[in-house]
């Protein structure tokens, strides 16, 4: 049985083209209700980032994205003063006879403040969806700094004072598990693990995202992908790859998979030379398991 509100959320996500199962919708719902960030982990290409996008669309609000990278610091995440502009402004005002206090008030006004994602999220007029993408790429110092913002929802700008959030954003934090996240961050968040989709779910996603495709081909693609993920590949393809592949095949007006088609389009799915070779070697075996006739026989 499912709570009616959760079902409603699930329907609205589905309307945005995002197929969710019970555990995803439940976690999203709870994170919104309990106002806690949602930490999403899972292999690459399973739609972690997509959650935030469809959430924003479903809630009819803005998506503010903070892409993390190594060396990301407060100036790029919070705010920065537009120094060049401040300098120019001071030069221009030199002859104006304004007092020092007036000048200072001028150059520390909103016009000179460059709002970065976190400050944007806090000062937004309506609860936005704040996506903190690939937090594991930022370093630990940034993680600890983020904790402070995420728990208090306030940012202090020395020249302006403390700014409190007018509307608390819905926060989605994603991680590819490049490094272990700190216990402290985990405890602040609700946790959601998204795995590669089951056959039915993947098929549903293909059919809804690539309407041009026929049922038989979609079916074959899904079965092929499911088998592919069983192999020990260096970079296991995710849903993103499945969709790319499906779109490509649909564009080529292909009706069903066969050996030549797969061989010539495998580069869409596999992004590693060794993986490619491994799959090419075991292609016939794969076909057998998927139940596709190869053109040769």
């Amino acid at each position, binding site marked *: *049985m*499912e*709570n009616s*509100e*959760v079902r409603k959320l699930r329907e609205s996500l589905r309307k945005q083209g995002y197929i969710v199962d*019970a*555990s995803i919708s*439940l*976690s999203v*719902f*709870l994170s919104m*209700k*309990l106002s*806690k960030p949602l*930490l999403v*982990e899972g292999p690459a290409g399973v739609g972690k980032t997509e959650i935030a996008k469809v959430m924003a669309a479903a809630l009819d609000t803005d998506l503010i994205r903070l892409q993390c*990278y*190594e*060396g*990301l*610091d407060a*100036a790029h995440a919070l705010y*920065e*003063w537009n*120094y*060049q502009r*401040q*300098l120019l402004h*001071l*030069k221009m005002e*030199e002859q104006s006879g304004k007092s*020092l206090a007036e000048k200072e008030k001028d150059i520390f006004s909103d016009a000179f403040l460059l709002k970065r994602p976190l400050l944007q999220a806090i000062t937004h007029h309506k609860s936005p969806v704040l996506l903190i993408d690939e937090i594991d790429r930022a370093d*630990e110092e940034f993680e600890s700094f983020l904790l402070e913002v995420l728990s208090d929802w306030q940012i202090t700008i020395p020249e302006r004072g403390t700014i409190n959030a007018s509307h608390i954003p819905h926060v989605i934090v994603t991680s590819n*598990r*490049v*490094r*272990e996240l700190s*216990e402290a961050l*985990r*405890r602040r*968040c*609700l*946790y*959601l*693990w998204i795995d590669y989709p089951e056959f039915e779910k993947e098929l549903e996603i293909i059919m809804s995202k690539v309407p041009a495709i026929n049922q038989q081909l979609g079916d074959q693609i899904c079965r092929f992908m499911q088998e592919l993920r069983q192999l020990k590949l260096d970079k296991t393809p995710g849903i993103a790859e499945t969709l790319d592949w499906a779109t490509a095949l649909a564009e080529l007006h292909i009706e069903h998979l066969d050996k030549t088609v797969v061989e010539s389009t495998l580069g869409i799915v596999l992004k590693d030379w060794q993986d490619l070779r491994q799959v090419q070697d075991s292609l016939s075996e794969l076909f057998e398991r998927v139940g596709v006739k190869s053109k040769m026989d």
Partner: protein
Amino acid sequence: MPISRQTSLAANIVGFCRHLRQHQFTIGPGEASDALNGILVLEAVNDPYLFREALKAVLTKSQKERRRFDELYANYWKELSKAVDSKTKDVAETSNTKGKSSRKRPPSLTELKQWLFGNKNTEQAEMAVYSPGAALGQKDLSGIPRKGLEEIIQAIYEIARVLATKNNRRYRPSKTPGAFDVRNTLRRNMRSGGEIIHLSFRKPQQKKLNIVLLCDVSRSMDLYSRFLIQLMFGFQSTYRNIETFVFSTTIQRVTRQLATNEFDTALTQLSDEVNQWSGGTRIGESLNGFVNDYGKRMLTQRTVVVILSDGMDNGDTDILKESLATINRKSACLIWLNPLAGKPGYKPKVKGMKAALPYIDLFAGVHNTRTLQRALKRFKIKGKQKRLTLSP
């Protein structure tokens, strides 16, 4: 009536949280109250499925915990209903006894002790001859191993300095003219009313490399146990970006156990939670386990992998080769420190060691502080490429 239900629900959830805590979940009162809120928000009190899923969503904080949750959940309510049936135990007692019974494995402190103090020789004697018959005095765990720790830490500081070479995207102030730092310049010149008099510059901050330390703790390494544990602790305490593993027949991550300032605490945690001291040796399988479970996350072009082992292996040599090739390819540098190689005239004769040599960037003999320092001196950084290379 509703109030009594409320309290019993709260009590149950608190009891359950305690149960999880006993199974190494990090759960505090905050999580418990979140769980209760979640249940209320979802109106899940009368829906067993939703109830479980809600608790799962709120109380698990990692994939590992998620996998263990269902079993723990089932166990808890089974025990609870038993207790309620017999009307002899209350919730707290149930969870307590649960915790006790679940701790099947006795603490392996004795194992570690044996591993640590199975040899009583000094470093010099260790090198000369191994005498298994040496008298074993019973010593306090906290007593011995601290000796020599300072030197090791000092030596590791040096390597840490060497490894801090990679440029970062962050900047720090610089005294020499270079990239112009507008922000600081403006700040410094505020007092002269915005007239630019002093200039500030900045330069890129340097970024440390990551270290992955893989320690062989099998029986053949017993002789160097004291040094090994000190080394692991020393590395962990001086170097921040480090992951430590031990292996004999399987790989086990001990970063968490070592992450403390107290050497004694680290020892206790190691002995309580690591159960493969003095085991057999399957280096290949262990390394393969590392590559599969942690490789993708931990091996990058900025990772230095340090393996501490004597290479005496009775596992599969092909797997060893394959794993080492992967590690070599995916990391910046693979260092193998071998306690035996410190002996004059040492030649890698052991099957495992021979197989491993082609994949190793630096092979050095290390069995005590002096040899460690000597090995560390061989690290050098090649000028512009900013990649760790080694002088022969």
